C-alpha cells in the first residue's frame, strides 16, 4: 500500500521582478505523479532550485498544490480538518539543527510535539524515552541542547519527530551542516529507523554517497521528476546525471575508471564496501588462475 501518492502535482507562484509592471508566474513543480510504498528508503536528488524542497513541503501540507493532488495515506493534504493527522503521519527534519530545537532540556524538546497534539502526560514520557533510545540519545535526556554537537542536535530533532509516531519522515538536507562523524551518526539513525522501525524515509541530499544507501533514487530537474530507479541503475547513467548537474559517487567513478582499464567490474557500483568486495574476489580468482 502506498503511504504517499501524488497525481499531476503542480505548484506555481507569482514573482514580481524589478522594472516589470506585471508579475510572472513561476512553475516550481510541474505535473508530478509518483507513489511511495510503505517502508521504502528513497533519496531525492537534483540541483539547487530543482524543486526538491518545494516537493517535500507538499508532503506534509506545509504547501498545497496549485493543481493536482497529494495523498498521505488516504488523506488529501488539502483537507484542512486532517492537517494534524497529516503532519504526525509525515514528519519533517530540516537542515539547520539550531532552528528546530525549542526547549532548554533535551527530553522536553522531544516531548514538545506530542504535548501539542494532546497526548496524555504518561504516554508523552513513554514516547520521549522510546524516541531518544531509537536515535541513541537516551543518555542525554537531561542535557541542554546547546551543549550538544551538530550531529547530536540533529538526532534530538529526529527524536522530536519520532515522538509524534510518524509513519514517514522527510529529511530536507538534514546532514548538510554536519561534520563527517555527525553525518555518519545521522545516516546510521536514518537507516535504523527505516530497517528496524519500518519508517518510510525520504532523504533530500546533495551528497551522492548518501543517496547510494537508499533503495530508490528520484531525481528532479526544473520541477519535474526526470529519473527514478535503484542506485545501481541511476549511477550507471553517468552522462545523463552530469547533464542534470549531478555526479556519480567517487566510488562509482573509481569503479568506472577500473572497468575502462580492463577490470571486469559490474556497472553502477556505488558503495565502498561493494567495490572493495568485488575487487578482492577478482584478485583472489586471478591469483588462483596464476597458481
Amino acid at each position, binding site marked *: 500500500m502506498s503511504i504517499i501518492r501524488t497525481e499531476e502535482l503542480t505548484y506555481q507562484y507569482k514573482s514580481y521582478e524589478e522594472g516589470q509592471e506585471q508579475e510572472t508566474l513561476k512553475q516550481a513543480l510541474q505535473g508530478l505523479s509518483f507513489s511511495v510504498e510503505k517502508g521504502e528508503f528513497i533519496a531525492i536528488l537534483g540541483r*539547487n532550485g530543482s524543486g526538491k524542497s518545494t516537493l517535500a513541503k507538499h508532503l506534509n501540507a506545509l504547501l498545497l498544490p496549485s493543481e493536482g493532488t497529494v495523498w498521505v495515506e488516504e488523506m488529501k493534504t488539502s483537507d484542512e480538518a486532517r492537517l494534524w493527522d497529516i503532519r504526525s503521519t509525515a514528519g519533517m527534519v530540516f537542515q539547520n539543527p539550531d532552528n528546530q530545537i525549542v526547549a532548554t532540556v533535551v527530553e522536553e524538546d522531544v516531548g514538545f510535539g506530542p504535548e501539542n497534539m494532546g497526548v496524555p502526560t504518561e504516554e508523552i514520557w513513554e514516547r520521549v524515552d522510546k524516541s531518544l533510545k531509537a536515535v541513541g540519545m537516551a543518555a542525554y535526556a537531561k542535557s541542554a541542547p546547546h551543549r550538544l*554537537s551538530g550531529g547530536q542536535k540533529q538526532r534530538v530533532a529526529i527524536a522530536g519527530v519520532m515522538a509524534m509516531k510518524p509513519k514517514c519522515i522527510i529529511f530536507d538536507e538534514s546532514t548538510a551542516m554536519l561534520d563527517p562523524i*555527525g553525518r555518519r551518526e545521522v545516516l546510521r539513525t536514518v537507516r535504523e529507523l527505516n530497517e528496524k522501525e519500518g519508517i518510510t524515509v525520504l532523504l533530500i541530499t546533495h551528497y551522492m554517497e548518501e543517496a547510494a544507501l537508499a533503495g530508490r533514487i528520484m531525481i528532479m530537474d526544473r520541477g519535474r521528476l526526470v529519473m527514478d530507479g535503484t542506485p545501481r541503475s541511476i549511477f550507471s547513467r553517468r552522462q545523463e546525471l552530469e547533464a542534470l548537474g549531478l555526479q556519480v559517487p567517487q566510488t562509482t567513478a573509481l569503479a568506472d575508471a577500473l572497468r575502462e582499464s580492463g577490470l571486469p567490474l559490474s556497472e553502477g557500483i556505488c558503495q565502498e564496501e561493494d567495490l572493495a568486495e568485488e575487487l578482492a574476489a577478482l584478485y583472489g580468482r586471478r591469483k588462483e588462475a596464476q597458481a
Partner: protein
Amino acid sequence: MSLLLQNVSYVYEQGTPMENTGLHPLSLEVKDDEVLAVIGATGSGKSTLIQMMNGLNKPSTGNIYYNGEDIFAEKYDRRRLRSQVGLVFQYPEYQLFEETVLKDVCFGPKNQGLSEEEAIGRARRAMRRVGLTEDYEERSPFDLSGGEKRRAAIAGVLAMEPKILILDEPTAGLDPEGREELLTELLALRRERQMGIVMVSHSMEDVARMADRIAVLSHGKLLMQGTPREIFREESGLLEAGLALPAACHILHLLKEKGLPVGTDALSVEEAKEKILAAFS
C-alpha cells in the same frame, strides 16, 4: 608576506564562571600563495581560529602578525587588515541585502573609501571572476539560485581585492555542479592573483583536491598539520578527530585489510586507480 599566528589561544567569557577554552595555544602560518585547509569536527575551534585571522576575535594570549606587524598593536589599522584578509562567513548568501547584485558587491569597496567609479570597476571584475556575467548586475540577489547567491556573496569580499581569502565552508549546501564551479574558480583565483586561501571544509574530497597544507583541529587543539598526503596517512588520528578519509583513499584501506598488496597513499580517483591496477598487474 604572510599571516603568522604565534601561541594564540582563545578563552570564552574569560574571568566569569562560564569561562571555557575555545582554543589552546597554537602557532600557524598562512603563506599568501597557498591553500590552507582547516578541518575538524563541529566545535573543534575552526571558526574561532579563522575569525582571529582577520582580527575579529582577539586572542586571549599570543600574537598575530600580518606582514610582520602585530595586528593587535595599539595603532594598527584593523579596518584595512579586513580588506586585505577577507573573510567569507558560512552561508554568506544570508547576508546579501542590496536591491541589485552590483550594489551588493560594491558595498565592501565603497566602505574602503573608494570612489563610486572605482568601486563599480572592482565589483564588476569580482563578479566576472566568479562567473557572474553582466546580465546579473541589475538583478535582485534574492532571485538568484543557491549557487549564484553564494558566488555573489564571495564576489562582495573579492571586490576588496584581499591578499588572503578565508572561507568558512564555502561549498556547504551547494549542489555538485555549484561545488565544482566554485572550487575551480577558487583555484584559478589563487593562480592568477597569487592569493592565499584558507578554507574550512567538512568535505575530505574537496580538501584532498584543493589544499597545499592541512591543519587538523580537535577539541580546540592543533592536532597535526602537513600536506594532504601526510595528513591522510594518519587514519587513526583523523578518526579520533571526528573526521574521515576521502572515499578513494578509504577504498584502498579496505582493500589492504582484505589482503590485497595495494599502497593506500592516494588522494584522487585517478591515483587510487593506478594503485589498484598496479596490484593487479
